[in-house]
């Protein structure tokens, strides 16, 4: 079943110079039980999309979409209260710097208990405090923290970043969400803890059938942990499809450059040899090029590239480029 189905999502920012289109007609679908990666560099709008999905963008951002449906219901047509109700029930999100997104003034137990919704509790009201505590302990055990007693009375600043991120995940899964959005969950972590965390996320995906949207700028970590992949550049969807297919045969020059710039994917490259890199730098939001936004940096750009390419498909592999790397059709 398709859980989230977004078509032509456009997010615009109101500024003194007029509207800036930060996200330009992006499509995104997430099926039940799928782990989808969302890759893009800074300024690509990946975090904006995540925030648009959970509906936490403020009034300055204009969100429009042809279709924005969650499990068959169009979210944008619902009233604000109904939106919150559905999103609050089904979607959870974890953030980049866990110790900063937790309440610094409350001990962990209080924060964890707060995240358990009433609908998860069975006992009558006098049994609830006890049940909540029991649930909180079970949650910590689920994310691989055994010594719950020591954690419960600690404050976020006293705990290592990896433990904080696990607690964030515990909070996120407390309501048994259908979709977990992980916005750069491992950037603040050590490489050994990173591997642990991905194993944890994968196990929830397999055991509970929870879908995961994994957002990151590191292609290699995303590639290793996802089944499907969407690549963004400057707010435009560049390529989407199955991770393995994209890695094997990228159709868009940007995806190609991303893959080539990671030494891990280039086994033939001798050490200390120059990496493949696109010239130039990522344009800022105020100076976005028209048409295909990769245009000025693209090695195969031609005259046609001043028009935004439409999303084309090759079986299940979507790409938006006038001159894909493998011949069209």
């Amino acid at each position, binding site marked *: 079943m398709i859980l989230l189905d977004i078509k032509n999502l456009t997010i615009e920012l109101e500024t003194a110079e007029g509207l800036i289109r930060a996200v330009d007609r992006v499509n995104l679908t997430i099926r039940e039980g799928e782990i989808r990666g969302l890759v893009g*560099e800074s300024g690509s709008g990946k975090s904006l999309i995540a925030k648009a999905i959970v509906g936490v963008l403020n009034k300055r951002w204009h969100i429009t979409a042809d279709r924005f449906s969650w499990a068959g219901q169009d979210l944008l047509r619902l009233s604000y209260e109904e939106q919150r109700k559905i999103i609050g029930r089904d979607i959870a999100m974890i953030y980049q710097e866990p110790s900063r997104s937790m309440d610094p003034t409350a001990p962990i137990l209080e924060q964890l208990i707060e995240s358990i919704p009433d609908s998860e509790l069975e006992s009558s009201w006098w049994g609830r405090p006890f049940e909540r505590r029991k649930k909180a302990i079970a949650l910590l055990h689920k994310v691989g923290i055994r010594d719950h007693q020591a954690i419960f009375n600690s404050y976020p600043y006293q705990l290592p970043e990896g433990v904080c991120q696990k607690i964030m995940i515990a909070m996120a899964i407390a309501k048994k969400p259908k979709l977990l959005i992980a916005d750069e969950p491992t950037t603040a972590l050590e*490489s050994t803890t990173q591997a642990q965390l991905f194993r944890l996320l994968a196990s929830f995906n397999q055991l509970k059938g929870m879908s995961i949207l994994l957002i990151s700028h590191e292609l290699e970590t995303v590639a290793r942990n996802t089944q499907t992949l969407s690549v963004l550049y400057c707010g435009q969807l560049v390529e989407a499809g199955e991770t393995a297919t994209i890695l094997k045969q990228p159709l868009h020059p940007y995806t190609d450059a991303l893959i080539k710039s990671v030494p891990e994917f280039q086994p033939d490259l001798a050490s200390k*040899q120059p990496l493949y890199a696109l010239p130039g*730098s*990522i344009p800022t939001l105020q100076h976005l090029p028209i048409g295909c936004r990769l245009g000025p940096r693209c090695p195969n750009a031609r005259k046609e590239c001043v028009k935004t390419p439409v999303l084309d498909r090759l079986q299940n592999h979507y790409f938006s480029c006038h001159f894909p790397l493998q011949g069209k059709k």
Partner: protein
Amino acid sequence: MMTTPLLEIRQLYKSYQKAQGIFGRKTIQALSDISFSLYPGQTLAIVGETGSGKSTLAKLLVGIETPDSGEILLEGEAVTISDYKKYNHVIRYIFQDPARSLNPHQKVGQMLDDVLRYSTQLDEEQRQDKIHQTLQQLGLMEEHADYYPHMFSGGQLQRVALARALIMDPKLLILDEALTALDPSLRAQIVNLLLELQKNTGLSYLLITNHLRLVRHISDSMLVLHQGKALDYGQTHEVFSNPQHDYSKKLIKSAQS
């Protein structure tokens, strides 16, 4: 090897005192018995998690901290903290986040000029020449000297930070997680730039990072630090193919799985 190493560290120890209770003191051994050597034109990677002593080591090398015991030899000569002014030409330091390590109130040209004014005998004209030459070497334009740091994009900013380090023609560059925060396509550009500089000028790098995949590509030798102790030290490909300690095995496995 016949050549003298550019930098040699012998049995370096460093500990910190931390107050405990009202009168008590606790000693934290930040580094114990660290030895390594770095030859000209080579790259040494120092890998380890937070709290492993990576940054302490870097601070000792640039003279922000003094070691408890042990020797730091630069081209065969022992350096002490009083020589700092002499050897800050040779060792330069690049910080993690260029946006935060550059002064936002100062134009790039002024900033580079300051470096030259404090540490060299060059006159005004020579300094200007040197600034322009360095900017060009790093793929920036002369006009960029009149820019403020906020006018640069992330990748260019890291180039400016590199310019500040390279303007003194150093022999050793310490990169403290300098590549981690960059976006992949910009990181590839900077890596290429660093590799090219190394090839052309014989610069040595000390790369402090926990990004193992990059280490494998650009470093010649590597040192795994864990809780202040050196675990594995050797050629990068040897350490990667045959790690000796459990921690290094775990670390390397996490980068490959």
